[in-house]
């Protein structure tokens, strides 16, 4: 682990008397390696290391009997702050319905997350309504209708051949009639470099005018995470990120990259395939996971 590596470095350095700047740089190299191994974006790592370098050259570290622990403390503290110090909740409309739009790359977990989110809101006393706006992936609508039924949440049944905009309009009317207070819209997976699909998402967002536009992103995403988050955020103005598949062993460095580069808060994490696998995001847990 990083703590053990830093301990080892400092033990070797201790015999040479007072710690120097060069000694601290040796430990910062280990921090850099740990973060890269955790899939934190290269540039984000550079920024992070220069931030903690200043703090690591302080007297608390240089004079400490346990400098490794001090550095870990600084790293951990900085990570937690960058990941989003305070809790980020969903936005709720004072006048229903609240509208939540889910977007993201192919296979990231949007459809499953839509149903999980609906169940969470339902258990919280709200009355969510699911909108399947993915008409391109084979059996995508059936998938959402199936998980909606499992969650015990009503969903719109789209007319074959309709566009996402048409589906949304009809669904909104239907939801209104059934007294639902929250609309959760699932969209097709799309590449951030697919102009046509990004335009489609952008116009859908303009039409829906969501209270939350959430990027559903896979926890195992690598260096590309920054490019993806930036592209989605610049085209569709995100209000939050949902990081999925955290029940695996991916370190999840993408969380730090996405959050620190776009400033968009991580609101939830997906922790399993079942519909109860959605939890609020905890920066401190994510920090220790990233550090390994």
């Amino acid at each position, binding site marked *: 682990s990083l703590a053990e590596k830093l301990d080892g470095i400092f033990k070797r350095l201790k015999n040479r008397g007072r710690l120097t700047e060069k000694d601290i740089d040796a430990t910062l190299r280990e921090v850099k390696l740990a973060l890269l191994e955790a899939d934190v974006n290269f540039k984000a790592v550079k920024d992070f290391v220069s931030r903690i370098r200043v703090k690591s050259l302080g007297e608390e570290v240089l004079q400490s009997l346990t400098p490794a622990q001090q550095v870990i403390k600084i790293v951990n503290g900085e990570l937690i702050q960058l990941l989003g110090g305070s809790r980020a909740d969903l936005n709720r409309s004072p006048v229903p319905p609240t509208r939540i739009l889910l977007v993201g790359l192919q296979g990231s977990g949007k459809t499953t997350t839509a149903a999980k989110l609906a169940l969470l809101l339902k258990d919280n006393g709200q009355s969510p309504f699911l909108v399947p706006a993915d008409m391109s992936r084979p059996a995508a609508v059936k998938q959402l209708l*199936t998980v909606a039924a499992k969650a015990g949440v009503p969903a719109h049944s789209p007319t074959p051949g309709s566009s996402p905009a048409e589906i949304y309009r009809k669904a909104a009317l239907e939801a209104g009639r059934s007294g639902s207070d929250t609309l959760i819209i699932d969209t097709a997976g799309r590449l951030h470099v697919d102009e046509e699909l990004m335009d489609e998402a952008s116009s859908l967002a303009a039409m829906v005018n969501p209270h939350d536009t959430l990027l559903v992103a896979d926890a195992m995403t690598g260096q590309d995470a920054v490019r993806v988050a930036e592209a989605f955020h610049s085209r569709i103005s995100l209000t939050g990120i949902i990081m999925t598949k955290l029940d695996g062993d991916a370190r999840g460095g993408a969380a730090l990259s996405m959050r620190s580069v776009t400033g968009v808060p991580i609101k939830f994490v997906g922790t399993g395939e079942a519909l109860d696998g959605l939890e609020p995001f905890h920066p401190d847990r994510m920090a220790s996971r990233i550090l390994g």
Partner: protein
Amino acid sequence: FGQGAQIGRDQLEELEEALIQADVGMDYTVRIVEELGQVLGRQRAWTQEDIRGFLTAIIARAVGVGGRRRGMLSLLEGDAGGGSRQGKGTEVVLVVGVNGTGKTTTIGKLAHRFRKRGLRVLLAAGDTYRAAAEEQLEIWAERSGSLYHRGSEGADPASVVHDALSIALSGSVDVALVDTAGRLHTKEPLMRELAKIMKVASRVVEGAPHEVVLVLDATTGQNALVQARTFLETVGVTAVILTKMDGTAKGGILIPIAGELGLPISYVGLGEGLDDLVPFDPQAYAEALIG
């Protein structure tokens, strides 16, 4: 670096940065840069083009270490020395990987490729778990002109595979592509289920599964290496397919995967349609990686 080498410290850092950003990982980035250094170290002044050429060659060789395609997949692509399997009964290809990487879609694409060669193909709906997984595969069977078999409601995946392969044998199917549910490699009961599916397959068709294809997502970072290691260890993988290379991710993780595990990389997915699958080309991959 040797005298006359046209590569300064800044350029070296830029190169390291490019490889890291391509998900090659620190370990293999260092190896590649060191190898480049040795090549450039000879007493000569290299041009930028020379350096690019050397680097591309190093990367192409590194990623091709596991060889390319073998067995039926090699036969499909008409690779030299691919041998012939036709008329030898049903070839069974098991497709595995973690959730959402593109297994089901890739099966559709592979089926299409086999069908274009005039082979009889059957798609087995081994994902009995995820919502609408069977319906999704059925659509790919229709699109590719393949036979399709699914189990009854709530059937056990191993029994679905058992029945599908029995049908394939009696129906003189050339290739049976078996879809499985996405599963995180960290979930032992799910990995055991996969082992059970393989055992059942071997009882129906001799030597089955003849191929175990691990489908990896190009957007995945270092965890792809862990996935490859684990799947290889627990069920044995014979080929890798890397999907979603039509995005901006460069798939650099294939280098440590090839280097450490010696796995052949057979195809690359470049989109969501039937034709969006190309045989893996180390040279093209290397050129795209260094951009």
